[in-house]
């Protein structure tokens, strides 16, 4: 099993009365709440945390893309990934990912991912999300009725550009390019592994099966609700004649480890409450513009992640925020001693049949010291109990294939004179 350290990079200094005074953490959040000097410290802490996670043995580090929000401060995850490519040695660099329909031309993604793959010596996982409606339709003004059509065309163009040695012309429905010929090209052949972050739509499952991509279910709501979605995913794989290789699937889980359950409850209460109340305070207006979800998805009544979050936000306003105890009970966050957490995660991974487990060990306003503590305890006392799971029976066909270590460049250490 692969254990990946995922950073959302939340703005950690939203005021206590944020949810009362502000309608949304996304799209039209008050820019006067943003303090650049504080963001300087946040970015540097967050990058320290990612680098520490890579150094202490996590299999991969993950970053993602969001716009106009305090939930995640990475409009360009590629900027962070470029730094990680230099400041880490062996960890996979999982960019989860670039919202393809937002790039004009989408070749920008082909180029930047190729740069990251070359700089890192072939450690890139290329994530291709559609993107949330807040990011794509409202912040970036993309047409919800064309978003998926543009996404699929961009995907086809990028893939062709990575796998076609000759310059070609692209006469797409939305993109016209007379000369397509990216320089650089990815180091990994035919291209870096492709992972698709999704929220539970049947079409996305079909597509992942057809293309043989990893489906990564990025849920905010833990393993209890995730179980049903992943069951749907595996039922669909079976129907389509695909094997049950657990490395086809990724899942995201909030985790807080401490010496004892009691200590964990004390330590992670505030950051969890901060995340689930303030960071997920999405105005329902921005949650599901017509056209964002396909009619098949609406018909199947698979509520999108974002709608769930927005409803949560609405509920939170109407009924008071969920308590930390509820978050723990419902499995939004898994907390406890190293043994407790290892037992629970093993159970979760086996029940969901998920081989690429993404862990949020910094969340909400968790400070750097606690994030390091959580990360170190996990790496030293949880991870060893999970290592090797699934690997006796299945090959991870969706993992980067870097150059041998001895062929990879070693960045010159930073010298301050």
């Amino acid at each position, binding site marked *: 099993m692969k254990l990946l350290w995922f950073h959302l990079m939340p703005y950690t200094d939203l005021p206590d009365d944020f949810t009362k005074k502000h309608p949304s953490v996304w799209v039209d959040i008050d820019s006067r709440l943003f303090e650049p000097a504080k963001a300087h410290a946040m970015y540097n802490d967050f990058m320290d945390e990612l680098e520490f996670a890579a150094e202490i043995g996590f299999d991969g580090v993950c970053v993602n893309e969001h716009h106009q929000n305090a939930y995640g401060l990475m409009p360009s995850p590629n900027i962070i990934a470029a730094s990680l490519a230099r400041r880490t040695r062996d960890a996979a660099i999982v960019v989860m990912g670039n919202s393809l329909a937002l790039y004009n031309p989408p070749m920008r993604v082909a180029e930047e991912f190729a740069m990251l793959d070359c700089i890192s010596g072939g450690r890139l996982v290329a994530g291709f999300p559609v993107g949330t409606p807040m990011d794509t339709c409202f912040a970036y003004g993309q047409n*919800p*009725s064309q978003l998926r059509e543009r996404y699929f065309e961009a995907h086809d163009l990028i893939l062709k550009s990575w796998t076609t040695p000759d310059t070609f012309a692209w006469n797409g429905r939305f993109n016209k390019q007379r000369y397509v010929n990216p320089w650089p090209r990815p180091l990994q052949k035919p291209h870096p592994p492709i992972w698709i972050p999704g929220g539970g739509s049947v079409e996305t499952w079909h597509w992942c099966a057809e293309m043989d991509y990893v489906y990564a279910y990025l849920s905010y709501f833990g393993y209890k609700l995730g179980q049903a979605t992943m069951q749907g995913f595996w039922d669909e794989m079976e129907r389509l004649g695909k094997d049950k290789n657990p490395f086809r699937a990724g899942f995201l889980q909030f985790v807080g480890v401490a010496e004892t359950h009691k200590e964990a409850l004390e330590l992670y209460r505030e950051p969890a409450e901060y995340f689930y109340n303030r960071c997920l305070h999405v105005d329902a207006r921005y949650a599901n*513009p017509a056209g964002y979800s396909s009619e098949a998805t609406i018909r199947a009544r698979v509520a999108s992640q974002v709608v769930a979050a927005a409803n949560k936000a609405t509920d939170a306003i109407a009924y008071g925020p969920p308590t930390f105890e509820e978050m723990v009970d419902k499995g939004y966050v898994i907390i406890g001693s190293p043994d407790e957490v290892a037992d629970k995660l093993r159970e979760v991974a086996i029940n969901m049949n998920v081989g690429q487990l993404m862990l949020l060990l910094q969340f909400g306003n968790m400070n750097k010291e606690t994030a390091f503590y959580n990360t170190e305890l996990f790496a030293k006392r949880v991870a060893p109990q999970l290592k090797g799971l699934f690997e006796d029976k299945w090959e991870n066909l969706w993992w980067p294939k870097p150059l041998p270590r001895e062929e990879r460049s070693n960045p010159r250490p930073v010298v301050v004179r």
Partner: protein
Amino acid sequence: MSAPGVVESFVKLGGESIRVWEKGAGEALGVFAGLGGLNAWTPFLDELAKRRRVVVPSLPGFPGGGQLHRQLDNLADWVACTLDLLEAAGLDGAELVGHSIGGTLAAEAGAFSRASVKKLTLIAPFGLFDESEPVADVWARRVNEIPALFSAKPAEFAKERLTPPAGLSPEAATEWAIVQNRATEAAARLLWPVGELGLAKRLHRISCPVKLVWGAEDRVVPPSYAKKFASGLAGPTETRIVPGAGHALDFDAPGTAIG
């Protein structure tokens, strides 16, 4: 759901069957409905049908308009489709009433093809955007905000336009909701995100007489936009502001004299 005296037929466009309703006698008067489209014949149309042969083709993606909107990627596609629709419905060169997004397409038809319309009535059309008085975002809305945004009679509007008819099975009610959602998507496909498509640069090409009609309580496209339209149009214009009506003028003031 047709009403007494309404003849329903279908024309083929882009492989889709597009509904055309017709009622009344005399010279043809084409009507393009507004946001949401029409699930049923309305008192507003009945009023028009007293004096004219009213012809109501469904717009792409709106109720009765199939999935045709999915083939339309840009303004050129939408205008060509609108001109096709006018011809298929026997409305080429006829007098046309366009409401809201229907007004946008009627105006674009007139701008791109002067001969396609004889006379226009535009009811609160989208198409211009003034930053100092912006057109509302009709998509970023909570469900409970919609009635008062569109209508001066929000409770009645919610009941009659936004609620599935009584007695539908759960499956039929889901389909009803999907058709409504599709209409909202179709509008987004043309007008997202601000409803401005460069019409200001083409208004001067509309040379037929234009009547501009606005609800005084329009909270979607402010009534002051009537002047902005009038000043850009080439032909004779007449403006009427209807008291007590919102953006859904056909619902709020069905007796408004048009044409």
